[in-house]
């Protein structure tokens, strides 16, 4: 079975790398964008199965990305998980109103993030944490 594709949209390169390592170890294929504009462009290009979206982004913000994705039918159906360092309550409500499947406030627990991803993708819950044995190649 092909790997599920996940687009990570975050302006922090360290966060993108950390998520990539964790997701790759769980057999996900990852793509990246560091701003709102390229977030939409990379979504069009790769048609990911899921998007992890930060809210504070250059060239717009996460809400702008969600709004633009909604305007394109094949992108509007992609589940979005918002992972943000912004204040929780008001942004959480706004994110859900904009169509996000989940809102997680940084710093995010890896197990929680993976559980939310699996749920959004309709995959069964994991029974153990990833080890070296299930790492993909670079």
């Amino acid at each position: 079975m092909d790997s599920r594709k996940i687009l990570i949209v975050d302006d922090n390169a360290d966060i993108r790398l950390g998520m990539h390592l964790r997701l790759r170890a769980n057999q996900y294929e990852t793509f990246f964008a560091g701003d709102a504009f390229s977030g939409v462009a990379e979504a069009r290009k790769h048609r990911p199965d899921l998007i992890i979206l930060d809210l504070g982004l250059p060239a717009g913000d996460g809400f702008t990305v969600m709004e633009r994705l909604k305007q394109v039918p094949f992108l509007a159906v992609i589940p979005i998980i918002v992972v943000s360092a912004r204040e929780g309550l008001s942004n959480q409500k706004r994110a859900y109103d904009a169509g996000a499947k989940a809102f997680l406030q940084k710093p995010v627990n890896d197990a929680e993030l993976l559980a939310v991803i699996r749920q959004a993708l309709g995959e069964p819950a994991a029974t153990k944490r990833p080890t070296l044995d299930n790492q993909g190649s670079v």
Partner: protein
Amino acid sequence: MTTPTRRTAELPAYLSHELRNSLACIQQFGSILVDGLAGELSGEQREYVGIMLENASKIRGVLDSALDGAEQPLGECPSKIERASRLET
């Protein structure tokens, strides 16, 4: 023009954003090391990274407590009762 009052009010949100992003990196890469995703650690190395992670978790707890509600923009901070009831629904 940004007034001193406005700047003071926005400080918690700014601090929260910056600290949460840095903490996220510490926790992410610490757990990557502990889980052996960058190669197996010795028992001692694993213990030390574990100590780092525990302390990062403590900082997060302090951050959550200290900035609870204070990081909301002016005029958007609900009372504790409102916040609790929203979380329960």
